[in-house]
């Protein structure tokens, strides 16, 4: 009997599946657990319409979480993303209404986002200021600008054509999913298949190595934060289409979800540890969490608290596995 057990335990297939179990990240376990719990407590969760909803809602978050991953890999942080995204929806809506052109509106929003991203990067790189403080400052600036530009209200009356970017589809796939997929591919290529990607890991892992390779740390940092701005500009297109206008607090606090998704995805805040695939899972974890609690009619205050708990749980699981 004992011999038989040992035989099973040492068989290759058994060991292989054990290794597979171990290789699955904390985020994947968490996602599976959340899906299981929500499908048990609310019958609506597993419906096709709801799952589609989870994915759609996740696209904007992914657009922020992907560049946030790169920023955190450099041991940085961008707290200004949510406020900047809100500002960009207002800019997009105002310019679109004034000019009648969606392209001009989008260009203006993208420009605003790039300028703000460059400001973050320049302050952090050139003056060696802590990212936390710099982006906290630009958060305030962007929020204030948005409120002034929108006069504190929703900017309504944007072109109906804009709605396609949220509700339309191409080849049977929803437009926001196309956008998210394209950005994911682009950033994936950037991080793993260009020289720039290596710099991102080195910015967090060993800046001395960059200097000795003759690469400018300051310029590399600037580009990383500008990439964050560019993605916020793209997300503004989706967000404006979704709410059918601009709103100065449309994305308030979304940077919290983005940072949470990155953390749940296993990207550490030190030494350039982590990567993009975990972030995709992290976005799904945060998205499912929010969606499930919505279905249970939980107020957003409870949702924020729940996301916070999930982040800590995911980090704890990864830390515990790291030790074992």
């Amino acid at each position: 009997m004992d011999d038989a057990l040992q035989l099973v335990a040492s068989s290759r297939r058994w060991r292989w599946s054990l290794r597979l179990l171990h290789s699955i990240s904390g985020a994947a376990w968490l996602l599976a657990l959340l899906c299981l719990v929500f499908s048990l407590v609310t019958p609506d969760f597993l419906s096709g319409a709801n799952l589609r909803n989870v994915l759609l809602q996740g696209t904007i978050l992914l657009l922020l979480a992907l560049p946030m991953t790169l920023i955190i890999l450099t041991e940085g942080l961008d707290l200004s993303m949510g406020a900047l995204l809100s500002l960009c929806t207002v800019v997009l809506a105002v310019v679109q209404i004034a000019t009648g052109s969606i392209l001009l509106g989008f260009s203006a929003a993208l420009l605003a986002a790039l300028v703000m991203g460059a400001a973050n990067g320049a302050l952090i790189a050139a003056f060696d200021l802590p990212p936390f403080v710099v982006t906290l400052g630009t958060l305030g600036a962007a929020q204030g600008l948005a409120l002034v530009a929108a006069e504190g209200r929703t900017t309504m009356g944007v072109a109906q054509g804009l709605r396609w970017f949220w509700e339309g589809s191409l080849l049977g796939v929803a437009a926001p999913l196309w956008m998210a997929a394209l950005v994911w591919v682009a950033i994936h290529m950037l991080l793993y298949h260009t020289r720039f990607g290596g710099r991102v890991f080195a910015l967090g892992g060993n800046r001395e190595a960059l200097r000795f390779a003759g690469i400018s740390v300051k310029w590399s940092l600037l580009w990383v934060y500008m990439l964050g701005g560019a993605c916020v500009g793209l997300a503004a297109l989706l967000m404006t289409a979704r709410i059918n206008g601009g709103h100065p607090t449309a994305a308030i606090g979304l940077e919290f979800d983005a940072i949470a998704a990155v953390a749940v995805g296993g990207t550490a805040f030190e030494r350039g540890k982590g990567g993009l695939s975990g972030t995709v899972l992290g976005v799904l974890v945060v998205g499912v969490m929010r969606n499930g609690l919505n279905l249970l009619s939980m107020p957003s205050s409870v949702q924020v608290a729940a996301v916070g708990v999930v982040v800590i749980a995911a980090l704890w699981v990864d830390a515990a596995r790291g030790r074992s």
Partner: protein
Amino acid sequence: MAAIRWITISFSTLSGDPLTNEATPLLELRGITKHFPGVLALDGVSLALRGGEVHMLIGENGAGKSTLMKVLCGAYTADAGQILADGKPVQVRTAADARVLGVAVIFQEYSLVPHLSIAQNIYLGREPLNKLGLIDHARMRRDARAMLDRLGLDLDTRREMQGLGVAQQQMVEIAKALSQNARVLVLDEPTAALSERETHKLFEVIAGLKKQGVAMAYISHRMEEVFRLGDRVTVLRDGKHVATLRAGDATPDELVTMMVGRKVDMSYHRGDRPAPGACLLDVQDISAANSIRHVSLKVHAGEIVGLSGLVGSGRTEVARAIFGADALTSGRIRFDGQELRGSPTHARDLGMGLIPESRKQQGLALLRTVCDNLLLAGLGRLFPSRIYQPGKAHEEGRRRIQQLRIVTPGTRTATQSLSGGNQQKVVIGKWLVAGTRLFIFDEPTRGIDVGSKEEIFHLIDDLVHQGAAVLMISSELGEVVRVCDRAYVMKDRCVAGELLHDQLSEANLLRLAMHHG
């Protein structure tokens, strides 16, 4: 020694005798001077690196070897002096400038990125690209494989650096420098972390590079390397050039004599010390993971014991292990007859105090007042009732400031505004308040001006006169000779030997540290 096997590598097949090679140096440093605040690190040093030659750089800790190499590779900019490449003056202001000149450096502190693969680390910033401008991963891995094979390193090039051992990291660092096809290669103690097999491999590679006409500057602390590899030897002392000679023209003893004899101001003179009392610290055969091996030593009350050795020989690790900051894998430590439990709190409670090398990070809360810092470790002792009494605290602070002659405007001055010497006194005072009987000093005079150094020595003297015991880690040989009653010398993370008072001399310390004779 097993190292003798290296001799099988033949250097005699070189084209031409390198010792008569007086062609224009590939790279030449002339009259390089470099100041750091309070220190003249390099004082008009010249060095010529010729193709096909290994130029050994030797000198005590702090002689200026590493600073010179950092000037050469653009990490530091010289205050004065000239750098010539192929006889023409050039500017080397950044690492990029040095690379253009074909200088590659194998660093001692690893310039590696933990979460990039081995291949990506080797080619960081120089990744091979395909037609689309994307990284050609297949080619990069192939090239990296070839580099590792050359070094006999059997590692998957896709592995992350994180998780490699120190020796493997050092080998990757070497592969990285080799991959740059440099004309001038700088090696800063490359074998310090390597095992014998890897060292052998590295020496083979160096022999190959010599044949290809590469110029090499090689910093070493091992005499056997100097004579096995070196064509020329340059000795530095106190940032000054002492001599450059052909390796065959000097004996190890002559080199040691050239290295020692730093000039120091000597206002401090050892007075008579009381006869040593009971054994206070008894370290029995301790080892710690990846740091020290089988270290035994004793310190008696009323005694100053030196712990000497070259940088990286494991001195600080011994102090950390004794104080319980690092876990022991074997052996035991007794303090005043009681076994230590391996926690800094326990060590402190028994009466041990560590005065760390980086006092600003580890020894002081710089923004807090002098008084706060003085009482930091002794609060429990001073206030048994656990209630803080500002009047009593102030009184105690003032008493210690007087006792230690700390120069400060008052007890409420922020500690960061004090000079290095006075900050050091605050750290000592902190342990006095805590009732410490054994003081472990790690480089007590680092970054302290000459006058204050002497005062620190007097202070250490006072401590032992009052019956305390002192274990003093120091890189400065002269300091150990002048201050200590006897000394242990570390080499390769073991105790290489013990020198009693009548044997204590700079030459003897250095001989043990470099393990010859």
